[in-house]
């Protein structure tokens, strides 16, 4: 039996714009995934703790405040510290092109900017899960 893909969509940092996060959450829901939305202004600690309790396969981080270079890698680092490195982490929001290589080097699997079709994100998740679907 194929299990459900569980995804945590989180907004680290201090900006209050969660429209993009909600659109992604909705699209993943419609793709048959179980999406946990944790709301605005989450610390990396809160995000990782929730991801572990929810036993998710994927974390999607959305940020528009500009603090991505600090907050995204911190999430990956905390996952490693908790022994949960089999969680796929991707990012989205307003992220300058030149920051993407750095983020990828820090373990962010992919970064989806504004205008990315949701189907692309869905395909990416399905193709890159770190835990098998059975």
């Amino acid at each position, binding site marked *: *039996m194929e*299990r*459900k893909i*569980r995804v945590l969509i989180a907004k680290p940092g201090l900006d209050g714009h969660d429209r993009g996060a909600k659109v992604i*959450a*909705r699209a*993943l*829901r*419609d*793709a*048959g*995934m*179980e*999406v*946990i*939305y*944790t*709301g605005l202004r*989450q*610390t990396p*600690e*809160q995000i990782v*703790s*929730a991801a*572990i*309790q*929810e*036993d998710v396969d994927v974390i999607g981080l959305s940020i528009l405040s500009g603090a991505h270079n600090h907050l995204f890698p911190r999430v990956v680092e905390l996952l490693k510290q*908790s*022994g*949960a490195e089999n969680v796929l982490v991707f990012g989205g929001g307003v992220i300058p092109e030149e920051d993407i290589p750095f983020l990828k080097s820090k373990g962010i699997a992919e970064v989806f900017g504004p205008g990315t079709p949701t189907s692309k994100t869905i395909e990416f998740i399905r193709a890159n899960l770190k835990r098998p679907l059975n």
Partner: protein
Amino acid sequence: MNDLIRACFSGDVRAVARLITLLENGDREAYAALYRLKDHAGRAQVIGITGPPGAGKSTLADKLIAQFRLRGLKVGVLAVDPSSPFSGGAILGDRLRMQGHATDPGVFIRSLATRGSLGGISKATHAAIRVLDAAGYDIVLVETVGVGQSEIDIVRVADLVVLVSVPGLGDDIQVIKAGIMEIGDIFVVNKADRDGADRVVREIRAMLELQAQLRRGQIPKGGPDTLAARAPEFLHHTGLAEGWEPRADNESGATGKEESITTPTPGVRPGAGTVSAALVNQEAGTISAALTIAPVLKTIAETGDGVKELADTILNHFETLSRTGELERKRLESIRYQLGQFVSNEIAHLMSLPELAAAQDELARKVFSRKMDVYSAGLALFHTIIEQGASHEHPQT
């Protein structure tokens, strides 16, 4: 598998989360391993929180967690939200209100999707409660999906059900309907700062009093004359009696305090109030009065008003349940139900096996070509299932 279960029992958060996932996915080995460990169950107080969508269940749960933590209790939360019947996906958003507790090691929050279950909780909820119980959480809060009138599966798994209501949902007929209003052990009128909160409190209380009287045989069933005679009193309680007028001080009443049922409510006609008080006093004289009239509390979850009192009421009520033997009765009833569910699940599993699916297919064709009727074919299939069940090897045996 046994290592995973052992890790759960030592309170390892990742193991707890992992095991719940396996149970949600219907992993038979995980179920078998969990249920075989008899000695780890029954310590946690299992509290159900149910009510319509948007009533404030999650916000109330968030504030209740804080109250239980102040009392030094570890809290596990299972928050259920609906799966899409179309895509099978879900947005699990209850956790959003409780994220303040995400990094507290004494709190474990898990979102569950209903995955096709229609009773307000998911199929794996009961097993997940057992996991949290075994992992050492003193309180397990189960928040149901937003319910309508008949999603009452929560009573099968919770020791105590808190039914959350809000002003403005309907008139007093809604509170006397069958279904959801029958399962509350504690009633909460949330958003009590809104107009009409006191009216809802009165309507619920009138419903509860009437129910207690009916149970006591004070109003003979099928006795319309007696019922008619009592109607003014009922109407009076609901605030619908002629000449009734709300008073400002009544509407601004403090939250959280259960309005004493033996004191006439302010703003009501003195005559009728006295009659009612006498009846209630008569009830208070019987031992089980504490259990027959459920508490009705007002809260404003957003600000936390009344939540301390709710937490106290929950803990006191649980104590009463265990003292009076009611807890034992409820848990026994719950186990009976679980056994029934187990058998249904086993049959469903057997029917999904290829040989049974083939038999079903063949019988369906016979019915279609009028060689057999549905009744005989159904019985034939049933007997095949029983035979298969007896010979089939699976982890539970």
